């Protein structure tokens, strides 16, 4: 390490320093004298309520005494002409290290969050509040900026009653279909990813490759690829090989023949049709569940085996029970994620191109409200079934 060069004060500066230091010493000494006098007075009264004050003052006196000894050492240095110049940073460090650790933590906590708070105050909060406010207004862009006129919940009424784009795309219908799909997909995605995570957790033949393949959907831009493939050549190849449809249809026919209910079958068929989408949507969830399963302590499994539990029991009573908090996280992530790729975004774009900013704000605020509602439902469904380590009731 490089050694810092020591720089010393010149004679003129030294005398200035001496005056300054002596002044402080005098001040501190007089302060201490008054404090001690106060303490004596209070002691003489011998009252219980003064004890705190006395302790505080005694503390102050002690601190001042420490400072005094330091200053006296400084005077000695000045006498010897060997007082070092301190940079601003050094002085700051000395000052900061005198603050108690708990207060330091408090200060750094605020400093660490400052960048995020800036973003919050500059970008997120004003825009979010404005968006909510606009949804109750008619907002029209003019040459001199935006004209905003309050019109109550008229936007909401129009949106849910009669907003149609492209001739036949009704907002409420699309919204209903989207939520229906989401409510079907959510449990399927969760169950699917738990299953895959338990499979991937233990090593088997080729598990490294399979693991790597299962996270390709996370990095691969699924919308881009499926868009380009399903329109052109991909369709052409699929049609000529008949790869995807044949097997599924035969299977469905078989189940119909043996008399499994139509309605159940249609749900299953829907899921099978969307298997590609489901596999592609559950990359992160699988990631979450693998991490969750790996964090379960091994002792639990050992104990269960010793008690004679079967594999089935172990899976339900230990694995599933221990990952419940993460099921919640994964569910929330699924809901949020599905909203960012919802087909109803088209309505938003359309309202923007129509220059109806108020209506656009209404659409986005309704999304938010529905989002919160669904997440609330998930919370309610999971409530009481979630297990935490530090849960002591």
């Amino acid at each position, binding site marked *: 390490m490089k050694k810092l060069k020591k720089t010393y004060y010149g004679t003129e500066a030294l005398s200035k320093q001496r005056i300054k230091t002596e002044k402080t010493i005098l001040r501190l000494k007089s302060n201490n004298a008054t404090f001690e006098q106060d303490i004596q007075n209070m002691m003489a009264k011998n009252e219980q309520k003064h004890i705190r004050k006395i302790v505080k003052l005694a503390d102050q006196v002690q601190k001042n005494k420490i400072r005094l000894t330091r200053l006296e050492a400084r005077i000695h240095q000045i006498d010897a002409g060997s007082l070092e110049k301190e940079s601003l940073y050094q002085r700051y460090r000395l000052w900061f290290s005198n603050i108690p650790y708990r207060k*330091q*933590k*408090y200060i*750094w*906590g*605020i400093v*660490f*969050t400052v*960048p*995020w*708070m*800036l*973003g*919050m105050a*500059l*970008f*997120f909060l*004003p*825009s*979010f509040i*404005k*968006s909510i406010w*606009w949804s109750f207004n008619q907002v029209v862009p003019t040459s001199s900026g*935006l004209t905003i006129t309050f019109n109550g919940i008229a936007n909401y009424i129009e949106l849910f009653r009669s907003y149609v784009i492209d001739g036949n795309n009704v907002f409420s219908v699309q919204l209903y279909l989207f939520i229906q799909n989401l409510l079907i997909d959510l449990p399927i995605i969760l169950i699917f990813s738990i299953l*895959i995570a338990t499979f991937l957790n233990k090593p*088997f033949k080729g598990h490294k490759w*399979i*693991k790597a*393949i*299962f*996270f*390709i959907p996370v*990095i691969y*831009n699924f919308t*881009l*690829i499926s868009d*380009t*493939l399903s329109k*052109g*050549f*991909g369709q052409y*190849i699929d049609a000529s090989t008949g790869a995807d449809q044949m097997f599924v249809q035969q299977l469905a026919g078989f189940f119909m023949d043996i008399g499994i209910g139509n309605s159940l079958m249609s749900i299953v068929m829907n899921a099978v049709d969307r298997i590609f989408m489901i*596999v*592609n949507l559950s990359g992160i969830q699988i*990631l979450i569940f*693998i*991490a*969750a399963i790996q964090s379960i302590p091994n002792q639990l499994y050992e104990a269960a085996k010793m008690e004679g539990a079967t594999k089935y029991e172990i899976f339900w009573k230990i694995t599933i029970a221990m990952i419940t*908090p*993460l099921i919640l996280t994964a569910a*929330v*992530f699924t809901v949020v994620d599905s909203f960012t790729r919802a087909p109803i975004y088209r309505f*938003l774009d359309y309202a*923007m191109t129509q220059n109806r900013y108020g209506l656009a*704000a209404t659409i*986005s*605020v309704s*999304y*938010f409200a529905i*989002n919160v509602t669904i997440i609330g439902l998930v919370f309610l469904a999971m409530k009481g079934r979630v297990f935490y380590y530090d849960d002591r009731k």
Partner: protein
Amino acid sequence: MTANKTQFLNQSFQKLKQASIKVYDKKLSTSYKRTMTFESILAWFALMVKYFLLYGLAFIILYPLIQQIAIALRAPEDINNPLVLWIPETFSWMNFRISAIVLDYWNALKNSIMLSGIVTLLQLLCTALAGYAFARLKFKGQKILFGLVLTTIIVAPSTIELPLKITLMNFLGTGQSLLGTPMILYIFAATGMGIKSGIFIYLFRQFFRGIPEELEEAAHVDGANPIQVFFRVMLPNARGAMVLVGILTFVWQWNDAYFTANFVSKINSDFATLTTKMMSIRNAIQGAIQQAGVWQLFDQDVTQNPLFTSMVLNTSAMLSMIPLLIFYLLVQKVLFTEGIERSGLVG
């Protein structure tokens, strides 16, 4: 003859009987043995299901990739050849060349790498700091702030898009517009407003809560202040979470069409990443190919075929994804050993 036959049959019957008795003794004679046998059959069956499921699903995931490769390597002259389905008759790099011109590949690639790299670094720093503060450095009102973090997770970016754009057009009343330069994305990343920053803050918080507090206390006793504790003790220990968040940020930024398009590319058409370029040529591929000046190279029956444009589009999509795929293959080992196994997803 018949006697011989009966004898032979008897013999084989006896053999079979012996073998079955053996099996019975070994596997089924007591109730314990029966359960064990049943369990082993069940385990075998489960294993088969597992292999079938995993390998089958891996195929489903790889299917579009294989399709893309097969399409990309096909020569444009082969489009109308009905015999070519998967493996092209004549291999050619023509599609790649056309796509590279259409995408303005090297320029867009440079933009993509720069944007994703810088955003990843800034976002990592911001979210790690905030996450650590929320986990360990308590101050007043922190719970409310954390509630706001959760709100940012739930609020879709499109909800705040329009007011945000209007704010940015005249930023802080200086009359300066921040839209149209990648700078705005860096600012978003550094202030924790980037893509899914809320989730990353949450993840870091969970992770830091999982590191024992004694570690910090030991560092403090040795004379470290909080910032030293963070950079010298906590961050090196948070490698798993850092790897996970870093990879996810990089990938999501690369694939992002929403932020990049809305705040930069739609306003300033000079700046395009691979993804935004891809999105913009998707609807106007015919014109893009014409502009690129490769139209004249082929016959009428090639250029008039809608499959030709689809082929170019496919190859473009693949080209825009290849760097990311290579990046993933390079880091996937680290992701699995460091990122998942030791990540802070669980508190």
